[in-house]
Each structure stands twice: as structure tokens, then as C-alpha cells.
């Protein structure tokens, strides 16, 4: 009895310190490393599939997984930037397809040099993002509604522009260069895969090591507090949209290399797939929390399930189901991580 009293926290100082229960420690760890839980899911899934079918772990197969993740993975970089600002971009898939069509059509139909065609398509992706960003920051419209609208607009523009045409590009040109494979031992990486990895490295750096990154997190977390602290939140938000647009432009190049052409119907699922990757990767839909590397892990998880379940011989519909479960689990985990006073 007397020891109880002695052990009880006495001073205010001690009461201010968070208690060190195991749950608390896990909570703190996930709080600091939002990409940790998706990483564990990815590793466990890979091990399970590897045991169930050794072909899964073969470098050739893992290369395919990476190649399949390249387009969604690179788009997810842009989506992460938007979601970190507590926004969402439902139009990202439509814009990437529009950009691929512009690039491919200019090169294919009008004989514009590949690099110039790329630049024009890239610029269109940036302008599309600028429109979204302008509507969100200047007219103060909710990003969900803005991009729901521009999703329809860009999809329609794509279909009108394509006239039902699917374009196949000659291999060896600039536009399909991202599809070039590079053998690293038994791995077959494409230029597109490497480009995606470079995007992740670059943005992991920009978000963690530059003031712009910190301001993006602060603005997404609590825009009014960020403004009062002296951050020009309008500028930060707009810059996030524009930079995400540039990422979409690069993703369009990766998509051209992947399908060796342009298809107006290629991007139907890219909007939601990029959001799925970001959410599974542990970035909070409420903004201000998450790490860009998580989105790469999220994109890989989706592909690993897709590929692994097929190899194990499971009905592919279970993959869709599994992704759904993961999304809900990720959002629930985020909710728990955000609840600080547990």
C-alpha cells in the first residue's frame, strides 16, 4: 500500500510526460514512421506469396511487378502531394491520359519530334493542374468537387481529341524510351521504373529536407495555424498542384513507354488506383501526415496482391476484395495514429 503511494506520479513534471505503455510506444512509432505498417504488410505478403509459389520471388516476376507498378506509382507521387494538403485529385488519371494522347498524336499524326511532343503534353498536364489549383486556392472551392468536375472535362476532351483512335508508337523513339528495359542481373527494369524511383527519391528529399516540404505539411495539417505562423499558404497550395501536374506529365511519358502508344481508355482506373496507393501507404486523407515512400509501398502492395494471388491460382476478384480491406484498414490505422490522447 505504501509503495503504491510512492510509485504514484507526484510532480506536475511527471504527469506531463506521456506514459510509456507498449500501446503508447507502438503508437509513437507509427506516428513517427507512417510508412512502417504498409511496409510490414508488403514484406509479409511477399514472404507468404513466395512460400506459396516460389515463382513469385523469381527476379523475372518481381521485375514484372515493378513494371506494372510504375505508372500508378509515379502518379501516386503527385497524388501524395495533393493529399498532404488535405486535398484530393480525382482528375489525375484523366489528365495523364490526355497528356499521353497529345504527345502521341502530335508525334504520330503531325510528325512533331518526340521531345517537343513530350514538352507540349507535359505543359498541358501542368496547365490542367494549374486550373485545379487555381479553382481550389483562389475560388476556395473544395478539391473533391473541383476535380470531380475537371475529371469529366478532361475525360471528355480526351475522347473528343482522340476520335476513338488508339495510337501505336514505333519503338525506339523518344516517347517510348521509358519502355526500354535495362537488365540488372536477372532483373529487367525499365527506364520508366527507374524514373519512378527517381521521382520518389526526389520528393522524399523535397518533403523532408526543404522548407517547401515543411510548409506543405504545416499547411495541410492546419491551414489557419500555418498562415498565422507566417506561411503563405495560398502559394504553398498552388505550388503543390503545379508540381503534382509536372509529376503527371512525367507519368504520361512512363505510360507511353509502358503501353508503347496511347489509348483514350487506358486511364479509367488510374484516378482511384493512385488514391488507393497513397491511402494504403499511410498518408492521411485529412492532410499533413504521411511519407511519400509509403505511396510507393502502397502501389507495390496492390501489384503484389494482383500478381501473387494469380500465381497461387486464386480468383482475381479476391485481389479486388483484398485491396478494399487494406484501404479500410489503412484509414482505420490513420484514425488511430491521429488520435493522440489515446
Amino acid at each position, binding site marked *: 500500500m505504501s509503495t503504491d503511494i510512492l510509485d504514484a506520479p507526484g510532480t*506536475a*513534471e511527471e504527469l*506531463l*510526460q*506521456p506514459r510509456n505503455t507498449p500501446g503508447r510506444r507502438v503508437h*509513437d512509432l507509427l*506516428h*513517427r514512421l507512417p510508412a512502417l505498417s504498409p511496409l510490414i504488410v508488403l514484406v509479409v505478403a511477399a514472404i507468404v506469396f513466395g512460400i506459396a509459389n516460389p515463382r513469385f520471388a523469381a527476379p523475372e516476376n518481381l521485375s514484372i511487378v515493378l513494371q506494372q507498378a510504375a505508372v500508378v506509382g509515379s502518379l501516386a507521387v503527385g497524388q501524395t502531394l495533393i493529399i498532404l494538403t488535405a486535398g484530393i485529385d480525382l482528375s489525375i488519371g484523366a489528365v495523364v491520359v490526355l497528356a499521353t494522347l497529345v504527345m502521341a498524336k502530335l508525334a504520330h499524326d503531325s510528325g512533331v519530334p518526340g521531345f517537343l511532343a513530350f514538352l507540349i503534353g507535359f505543359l498541358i498536364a501542368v496547365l490542367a493542374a494549374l486550373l485545379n489549383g487555381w479553382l481550389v486556392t483562389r475560388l476556395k472551392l473544395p478539391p473533391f468537387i473541383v476535380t470531380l468536375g475537371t475529371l469529366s472535362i478532361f475525360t471528355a476532351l480526351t475522347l473528343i481529341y482522340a476520335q476513338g483512335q488508339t495510337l501505336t508508337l514505333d519503338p525506339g523513339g523518344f516517347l517510348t524510351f521509358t519502355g526500354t528495359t535495362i537488365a540488372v542481373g536477372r532483373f529487367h527494369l525499365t527506364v520508366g521504373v527507374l524514373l519512378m524511383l527517381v521521382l520518389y527519391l526526389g520528393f522524399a*528529399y523535397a518533403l523532408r*529536407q*526543404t*522548407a*517547401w516540404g*515543411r*510548409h506543405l*505539411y*504545416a499547411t495541410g*495539417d*492546419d491551414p*489557419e*495555424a*500555418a*498562415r*498565422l*505562423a*507566417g*506561411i*503563405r499558404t495560398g502559394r504553398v497550395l498552388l505550388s503543390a498542384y503545379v508540381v503534382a501536374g509536372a509529376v503527371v506529365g512525367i507519368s504520361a511519358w512512363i505510360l507511353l513507354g509502358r503501353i508503347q502508344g496511347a489509348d483514350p481508355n487506358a486511364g479509367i482506373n488510374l484516378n482511384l488506383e493512385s488514391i488507393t496507393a497513397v491511402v494504403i501507404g499511410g498518408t492521411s486523407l485529412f492532410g*499533413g*501526415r504521411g511519407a511519400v515512400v509509403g505511396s510507393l509501398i502502397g502501389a507495390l502492395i496492390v501489384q503484389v496482391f494482383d500478381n501473387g494471388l494469380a500465381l497461387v491460382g486464386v480468383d482475381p476478384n479476391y485481389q479486388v476484395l483484398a485491396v478494399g480491406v487494406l484501404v479500410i484498414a489503412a484509414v482505420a490505422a490513420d484514425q488511430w495514429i491521429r488520435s*493522440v490522447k489515446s
Partner: protein
Amino acid sequence: MTQAVLEARGLVKTFGHVVGLAGVDLTLYPGEVLAIIGDNGAGKSTLIKCLSGALRPDAGEMVLDGTPVSFSSTQEARDAGIETVYQTLAVAPALDIASNLFLAREVRRRGILGTVFRMLDTSGMRKQAKQHIDDLGISTLQNINQAVETLSGGQRQAVAVARAAAFGGKVVILDEPTAALGVRESGQVLKLVRDLRARGLGVILISHNMPNVFEVADRIQIQRLGRSAGVITPTSHTPAEAVAIMTGATTIDQVRDAHQTTPTG
């Protein structure tokens, strides 16, 4: 008399039909603590937000160190030497203490890493943040790398106060900085306010805590219904009289008349 460090004349701020400020004057001298008291909704926060660039007044003028100023952002006010602790604290919850101290005034690395690659000097900022917090004698903040949202309300307040105190050049404004603090921590903030005054800064302190106000303030401006009801000093009036003026039970003139007819003090 010395020149005022900050002077505001006829500040007006309305929110639609709600009148936040209906023409308020304010004078702050260097090396003094000016307390602002008033009921909830009296316009105290609106007043200091106009001074700190967080709100743009509809009318009125401001003079800082003899030069007319008008701020279109808090950053401009900070650059001019006005630091503010807002009632809502304005901290970034997910960022750590050091990052919050240097929020919007980040320090980059020297050389090409900083100029071309825009890399932040994270360890340098941490060291400086630790130094600032130690200098300010804020003992509640132990781990500079802790995310602010994992801190208690009082600790968060300490972060906001530390940020303003560390970088205040001419004026430090504190909007209810002790609201979430215990007795000991409140005492620390009051000591800090005195230290800032001793450094020659002008300090504006908003507080509902009359004992604190009468302990630390040189002059007390009483806000009532978006107007200034007058400026008193801790020796000219009692806390009870201040509260009476604040709530409209009496006016500053009536109190002065009463003092003159019955000179008891």
C-alpha cells in the same frame, strides 16, 4: 517621453455585420508591458491580429518606430520585428518543437547544399532551438524532436511563447499565453515577459487573469464592445475598478471623479 515603438490610430475591423473593432487607438512604448483586458468578444484578439498582420483593418493607421506600416501578412509583421503568440497558438501539430520554432524562418545549409538543393540545416536549427529554450528557462520542454501534438496544452503554449520570445525584435504580442498553464508555468511566462521588457522590447499581454495583469503590467488598456474604454495603471486603479470598467458597471471618468472627491487610494 520616449517615442512609441508601436502606435495604432482609429483601427476599425468588421466581419459582415459584426463589429470587431470600432475605432481603437493603442500606444506601446519600448521597454513596457501593456496589458489588454476585456470581456469575451470585446475585440482583444481582433485588435492584436490587426497589429500582427493576421487581419487587415478596414480603416486606421499604424506606425512602427516612427514609420507608417501596413501589413498584408503575418510574415511582413514578423520581418518588421513583431512576434505574436495567438490565442489559438498557431503551431503545426505534426511537426516537432524545433521545426515549429523555425516555422516560416527555416535556416538552410551553407554552400551549394543550401543554395542549389535548398537543404535545411536541421541539426543547426535543433541546436539553436534547444539553446533558445534553455535561455528562456522553459523547463517543460525536454525533447526538442517531439511532435507538438504529443505535447500537453501547457507545453504547446510554451512552444508558441518560446517562438515569439526567441525571435521578437521590437514587439512581442501574447494573446492569453497562460490560459492553459499551471501556477508554476504561468510564473515562468510572467518572468519571460519581464525579461523581454528588460531587453527593451514592447510587450502586449492579453489576459483574463487580473492578479497576473496587475503584477506584470505597466499600463492596462481596457477594451469594451470593440472600443477602448481607457488606459489605467496598476497603481491608479484597483483590480475591482478595472473589472467594473471592463463590464460597463462604471466608466473611467466616474472612477477618476470618485478618486478626487474621496482621496483614499
